[in-house]
């Protein structure tokens, strides 16, 4: 029984319409209907382009998923990884039966429950107790199943005192805990979990991961989608790596993660648009260049934990006499924000070019892969433009003195005065 396949995906593809959905669909539908009525293939199935957000396409349609094939066995835990836009969410939606594939089929054995969000169907006016029943029923439990688990759920969430209070009076933490508690006590044969673990405090996240591990060890099947490589690594036996809507790799988790890291994470340390129309920007701001310049002796040297880095950003303002501020966020590969720095305010004038520079000293960052998001903020509160993943660079460990060569723990790795005396 252990090798029984419980999920079988065959040539699953999903086509999405780009741009303004809802205009001209009647005419598209009529054309489509006319083509199929004459026994021809749907004309819109051909025009799709590959899902690559960086390229512009002339087609109105794009494949979010193309020819996805995989099997999941009973008791398996499958992690789905991939960059934003690789098709993870689309695959989850299809698995959860929220939408259907354009082509292909997924066959499932057993009951599926999916957690794409915590607290789906929670109503603020209902009490905690009523919401447990409501949410449980939406997730596919019968009233009897919920009743038999009720005390356990309340206990897990730690909200005994407030169980007869409307959830609108709950703190956001309590709300999330209650919602997750219901989900965690589902007992479907197959559980599909999106990055809902990104909520709650660290302790609660740990509890949730532990609970999911328990579920998996009881012979139930889990599909888990996350950006958090650590969570995927610790929870999943196998992993599926999606890239631009296709399966790039599938197999043992550590190998797939390694493959993923080496293929997706390219250092992107210098970007020059030079007035190109493709440059990131909008009606307020247009980027000209972004650079991360490591202070290394030889241009081919890697950035080590000791290397100082200078960051430069150039942009053109289309705003006139408006004070703006810049906000720079540095993220680790796992998506943890290391810092958020502000620059400005500065009053911009229309058509002028502006520069921003940041010095990151050596001996601050630990070895990891870092990405940078840049935010433009108007009047110190309104976001006017955000660029995600503007630059990416890898910081490697340097030759260490001493005898220990394991991974250096910590989000940062500063050198601070720390002495040991008698």
């Amino acid at each position, binding site marked *: 029984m252990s090798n029984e*396949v419980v999920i079988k995906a065959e040539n699953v593809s999903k086509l999405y319409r780009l741009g303004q959905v809802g205009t001209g669909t009647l005419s598209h539908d009529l054309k489509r209907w006319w083509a199929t009525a004459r026994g021809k293939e749907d004309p819109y199935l051909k025009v799709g382009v590959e899902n690559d957000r960086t390229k512009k396409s002339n087609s109105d349609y794009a494949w979010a998923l193309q020819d996805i094939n995989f099997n999941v066995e009973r008791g398996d835990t499958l992690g789905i990884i991939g960059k934003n836009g690789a098709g993870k969410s689309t695959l989850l939606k299809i698995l959860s039966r*929220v939408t259907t594939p354009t082509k292909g089929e*997924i066959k499932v054995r057993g009951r599926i429950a999916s957690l794409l969000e915590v607290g789906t169907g929670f*109503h603020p006016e*209902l009490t905690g107790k009523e919401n447990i029943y409501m949410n449980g029923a*939406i997730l596919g439990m*019968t009233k009897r199943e919920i009743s038999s688990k009720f005390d356990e759920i309340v206990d897990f969430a730690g909200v005994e005192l407030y169980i007869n209070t409307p959830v609108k009076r709950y703190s956001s933490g309590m709300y999330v805990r209650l919602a997750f508690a219901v989900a965690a006590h589902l007992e479907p044969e197959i559980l599909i979990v999106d990055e809902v673990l990104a909520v709650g405090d660290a302790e609660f996240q740990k509890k949730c991961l532990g609970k999911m591990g328990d579920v998996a060890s009881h012979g139930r099947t889990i599909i888990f989608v996350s950006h958090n490589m650590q969570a995927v690594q610790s929870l999943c036996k196998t992993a599926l790596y999606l890239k631009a809507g296709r399966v790039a790799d599938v197999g043992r988790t550590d190998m797939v993660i390694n493959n993923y890291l080496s293929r997706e994470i390219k250092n992107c340390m210098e970007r020059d648009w030079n007035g190109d129309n493709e440059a990131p920007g909008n009606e307020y701001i247009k980027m000209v260049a972004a650079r991360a310049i490591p202070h290394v002796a030889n241009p081919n040297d890697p950035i080590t934990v000791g290397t100082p880095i200078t960051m430069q950003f150039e942009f053109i303002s289309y705003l006139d006499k408006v004070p703006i501020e810049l906000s720079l966020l540095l993220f680790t590969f796992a998506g943890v924000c290391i810092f958020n720095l502000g620059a400005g305010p500065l009053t911009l004038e229309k058509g002028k070019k502006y520069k921003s520079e940041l010095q990151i000293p050596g001996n601050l960052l630990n070895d990891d892969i870092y990405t940078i998001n840049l935010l433009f903020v108007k009047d110190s509160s309104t976001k006017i433009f955000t660029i995600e993943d503007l630059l990416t660079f890898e910081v490697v460990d340097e030759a260490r003195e001493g005898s220990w060569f394991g991974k250096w723990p910590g989000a940062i790795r500063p050198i601070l005065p720390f002495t040991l005396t008698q």
Partner: protein
Amino acid sequence: MTDKSANYDSENWDIRIAAHRSVVDFNFKELWRYRDLLMMFVKKDIITVYKQTILGPIWFIIQPVLTSFMFFFIFNSIAKISTGTVPSVLFYLIGTTLWSYFSDTLNITSKTFTDNASVFGKVYFPRLILPFSKVVSGLVKFLIQFSLFLAVWLYYVFIEHAVTPNWYILLTPLWLFIIVLLSLAFGIIITSLTTKYRDLIFLIGFGVQLAMYLTPVIIPLDQVSGSKKIFFQINPLTSLFEAFKYGFFGQGSFEPFWLMYSAGFTLVLLIFGIIIFNKVEKRFIDTV
């Protein structure tokens, strides 16, 4: 054994997620399994309407009273449209009560997809559960308004002796049931069409308003002269409303042919509605 297990492997799938299902592939068993969810939705509707509003049920009473009064004033006093021998207050009261149930249910179910897009986008359950639950929770309001009607009716029967009910009154649950199904059928068809072609919703709102004048809410069918009568009769609600009143008032019309027509119309429309709803529910989240 090997043969058997191979067979099991290739055939025995519980769920198939694919682009096309046949039109008749409709899973009643699954719908039944989610009956608790239906009751939860009904409970939620009732709780959220009544919680924190002491006047909640009172509004339900005020609405038909005011409407009946308006009808009396405009159509009876000014336009001099007779309601036959039935006291006009009683006539209007049952008309508006039935009509408001029909139009409320139609309105709410016709927004099933748009109103619940966020839930539908996150979790799967048989989507028909939602319009079904609206039909049931709408009955609560109907029963409150209907009790008001019953009170007034009892007054006219036993004190004023203005109307005499007959045994056909026992059939009223059946008429009500058909009206319920009819509003549901219209509702799910409309919501299926409007997810993609939004502008239809304006047409529908307008259409429902007009339809009231082709239903014996204000004018009894026997007050409509010969050649125009057919426009009333092809409205499936007409014979149902008439039969409803026939049982309570002992007058009006009770026409088996048109009742059969209404029942058949409802059945066909409901089957069509479920098919189209089923087709749309799989894809709508991509277009909404």
